[in-house]
C-alpha cells in the first residue's frame, strides 16, 4: 500500500483551512495514518527539498523561462542569470515558506496515494490549478507576483512527488511510532 506526505503549510493553518483541506483527501478514500502540528526547523526545511544539481538546474531553468517570457532581466531583478544559483535561491525561499510557522504534517495511505494526492492538490502554480483541486479552489497566486516578491508560490500544500520523495519525507517528518494502522469503516466496500 502506497503512502504519501501531505503538509498543510502555515498559510493553510492560519487561514483556518485544515479541516476543509483534509476532507478532500479523506473523502476519496485515502486513509490518514499519521498527523501532527509541527514547526519545522530550518534543518528539516533544507532536507525536505533536494540538494542536487539536477534539481537546482530544473528549477533555475523554469524561472529563467518565466523571466524571458516577461521580458525581465534576471540579473537586475535577483542578481544572477545562472540557473543553478537561481535554483538555490528558489530553494531558500521554499525553506522560508515551509518554516514560517506551524504546519500540519500528515501521511495518507491508499492505492496510488502519491498520484492521487497530487491530483487532489492540483498544479504547483496556483494560476494553473483547476477548480476542484485544493490549490485551484483556495489560491490565486501566480508566477509574476511570486517572482516580483521574490518568494515561492503560496500554494498551501506540499504533496510528495514520487516514491522516492515520499519515502524520504516520511522518514524526515515522522518516526515509525507516529504512523498508525487501522481499517477504515468503508474499506471493505471500496476495495474488496
Amino acid at each position, binding site marked *: 500500500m502506497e503512502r504519501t506526505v501531505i503538509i498543510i503549510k502555515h498559510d493553510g493553518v*492560519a487561514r*483556518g483551512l*485544515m479541516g*476543509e*483541506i483534509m476532507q478532500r483527501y479523506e473523502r476519496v478514500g485515502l486513509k490518514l*495514518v499519521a498527523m501532527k502540528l509541527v514547526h519545522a526547523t530550518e534543518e528539516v526545511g533544507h532536507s525536505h527539498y533536494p540538494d542536487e544539481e539536477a534539481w537546482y538546474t530544473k528549477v533555475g531553468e523554469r524561472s529563467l523561462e518565466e523571466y524571458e517570457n516577461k521580458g525581465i532581466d534576471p540579473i537586475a531583478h535577483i542578481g544572477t542569470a545562472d540557473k543553478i544559483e537561481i535554483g538555490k535561491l528558489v530553494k531558500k525561499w521554499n525553506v522560508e515558506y515551509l518554516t514560517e510557522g506551524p504546519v500540519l504534517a500528515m501521511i495518507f495511505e491508499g492505492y496510488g496515494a502519491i498520484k492521487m494526492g497530487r491530483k487532489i492538490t492540483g498544479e504547483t502554480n496556483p494560476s494553473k490549478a483547476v477548480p476542484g483541486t485544493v490549490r485551484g479552489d483556495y489560491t490565486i497566486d501566480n508566477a509574476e507576483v511570486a517572482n516580483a516578491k521574490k518568494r515561492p508560490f503560496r500554494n498551501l500544500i506540499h504533496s510528495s512527488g514520487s516514491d522516492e520523495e515520499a519515502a524520504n519525507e516520511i522518514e524526515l517528518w515522522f518516526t515509525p511510532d*507516529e504512523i*498508525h494502522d487501522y481499517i477504515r469503516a468503508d474499506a471493505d466496500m471500496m476495495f474488496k
Partner: protein
Amino acid sequence: MHERTLIVIKPDAVKRALVGKIFQRFEDVGLKLLACKMIRPTREEIDSNYPHTEEWYKGMGEKVLANIKDSELDAMTELGTEDPLKLGRMIGEKIVDYWLEGPVIASVWGGNHAIKVARKIRGFTVPALADAGTILGDYSSDSSTRALKEGRTGRTFIHASGDQDEAKREIEHWFGKDAQLFEDYDRVDHLATFIQNVWNEQ
C-alpha cells in the same frame, strides 16, 4: 477569558474518515489549533486520563438514564438497575475498550471561552438528544442503552474538556507538562473576529 481546551477525536470518528469535517467545525468558529498528534495510547494511559470519582461515574450513569427515559424504556427492565453510580461503573469498564479500537487524534485548541465553545459545537453525548448542528447531532446515532445491553460503551465520538481544571489536567496528560503549544501565531481572521478586543485594548 482566553482558554485552552483538549479535544480528542476517538477511533470511530477516525475510521469513518471524519477528521477533516470535525476540524472544520472548530476552525470555523475561530478556535486556533495549538497542538495536534495522532496517537494510539495504551490501556494505562487511557484509564489514567479519567478522574474515576463518584461524581464522574454518576454523570455517565445519569446520561444513560436520560437516554432510557427518552426512549420510553424502563431502566430496571433493560439494565437491571436504575442507580446512576452503578450504571456509570458499568460504562467505566467499557470506555477504555472503546478507546483501544484504533488510533485517536489528540488536539489542543485555544480561543475565547474555548472550553464552552468546543463543548457546544460537539453537542450532548447522548446522540439522540444532541441538537442538530452539533457534531454529535449531525454524525452520530448510537444509543447508550443499546450499547450497555451489548456490553459496550456508547460511541461518544469526541472528547472535549469540561472545565478549566479538566482542560489543564488533560492537556498535561496527553501532551506532557512541557508540551509545546503553538501560541505564537494568529489566525488571519483574528483581527476581524475579535476587533472589539482590539478597540478595547487601545
